């Protein structure tokens, strides 16, 4: 490993090493109906943040792929999208468990939940699109355009729409954000470390995945 290009892997490793133990045993602000489930904040919310950051990177590689017509960038976009998809699934799963303990049900008709489901559907359609075009260059263009469009719609879905409609989520539909009450000062460093650590971990996985598919397809990474 070249230390000049892999510092972010070490950074992510150290951040997770610091944050994961603290997420279990660290001091949290226990209140109201949340009780100790507030610890899920470290996982649920950071999954979504990491997913959105990885999707942003996928959209960035898609733009690069369109601009340079390089298959390596195309592979990167695909890998980042699929890792982001897995993080999204983890976000849904952790959120569903949390909702069971606080709102009393695994799934509710909440705009943020519907938006999350919509975002995952968009990326599922992206993988279907990739699978249905055998020619690499054609696939690069179609997939990249759809990825960029899908990312814009995802930002609308999970970022904008829940804020203007009624939502159970903190910080949406007139509800105060977690930051106002619950996210006490000593929780912030752990939370931000989780976000950055998981994003770095995801990017690392995506990089390895890119290399594997490049070997499989015998394309040089350019």
């Amino acid at each position, binding site marked *: 490993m070249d230390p000049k290009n892999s510092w972010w892997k070490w950074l992510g490793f150290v951040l997770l090493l610091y944050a994961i133990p603290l997420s279990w045993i660290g001091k949290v602000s226990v209140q109201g109906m949340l009780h100790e489930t507030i610890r899920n904040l470290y996982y649920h919310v950071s999954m979504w943040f990491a997913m959105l950051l990885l999707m942003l990177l996928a959209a960035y590689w898609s733009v690069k792929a*369109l601009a340079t017509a390089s298959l390596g960038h195309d592979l990167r976009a695909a890998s980042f999208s699929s890792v982001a998809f897995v993080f999204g699934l983890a976000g849904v799963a952790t959120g569903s468990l949390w909702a069971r303990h606080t709102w009393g049900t695994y799934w509710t008709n909440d*705009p943020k939940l*519907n*938006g999350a*489901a*919509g975002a995952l*559907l*968009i990326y*599922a*359609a992206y993988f*279907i*699109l990739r699978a*249905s*075009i055998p020619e690499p*260059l*054609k*696939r690069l*263009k*179609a997939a*990249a*355009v*759809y990825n*960029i*469009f*899908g990312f*814009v*719609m995802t930002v*609308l*879905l999970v970022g904008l*729409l829940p804020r*203007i*409609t009624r939502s159970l989520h903190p910080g949406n539909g007139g509800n105060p954000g977690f930051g106002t009450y619950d996210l006490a000062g000593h929780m912030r460093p752990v939370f931000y470390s989780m976000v950055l650590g998981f994003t770095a971990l995801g990017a690392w996985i995506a990089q390895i995945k890119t290399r594997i598919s490049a070997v499989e397809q015998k394309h040089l990474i350019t």
Partner: protein
Amino acid sequence: MISVLRRIATLASHDLQSLWRTGSNIGALVVYVLSTIFLFYRVFLSVSQPRLWTSLLWLTLLFSSAFVASGLFRHLLGSGRTYYFFLARPSELFLSKALTAFAMQSLVFILNVVGFAVFLGFPVASAWWFLLALWLSALAVASVFILSTAVASKADAGGGLTAVLGFPLMVPTLTVSLQATGLASDGIIGPAFFKHLALLVGLCILPLLLGAGLFSYLWRD
């Protein structure tokens, strides 16, 4: 600027003319819409709940707009590509297709609303605001479909892929649309309604801007 707009209008009117002269496309649409509405009539006889009315309307609208969009890029591929390449810029071509889709979608919309009103009734408080919100949503749906068709035309998978790519992207549009039409059908015309109306206009324009920028990458090989 004027010449760009004129080129777009000319291309769109050419498209509409060829659609009209071929006849089979518009005929298929009319038959599809009317037979679906008649089917709903046989099942429900009349619909008094605005929510059910709207969702039934979306069933016909979504599939008919997917049908309209899926045919629009066919002649731009193959030998037609070279011809159009010298005629207009890709962004102009895309916008002309969007204009065609908007015109066709408005036709489908009118056909649907009239058919629904005749057969199933019209259970809405603020009719004109409701129709405006619904029409804007129909255009927003068409504008998402036009971009997903452009992407799907890269694959030789036929019309099915348009629907697969388009439906997930439809979620935001339909969410906003349901809120807006819900407010109008209850007769609550206030700041919340106009906020949703403005969002719908934004959702019409956003895919067009993205498509106009990105279509050149899709089109040239």
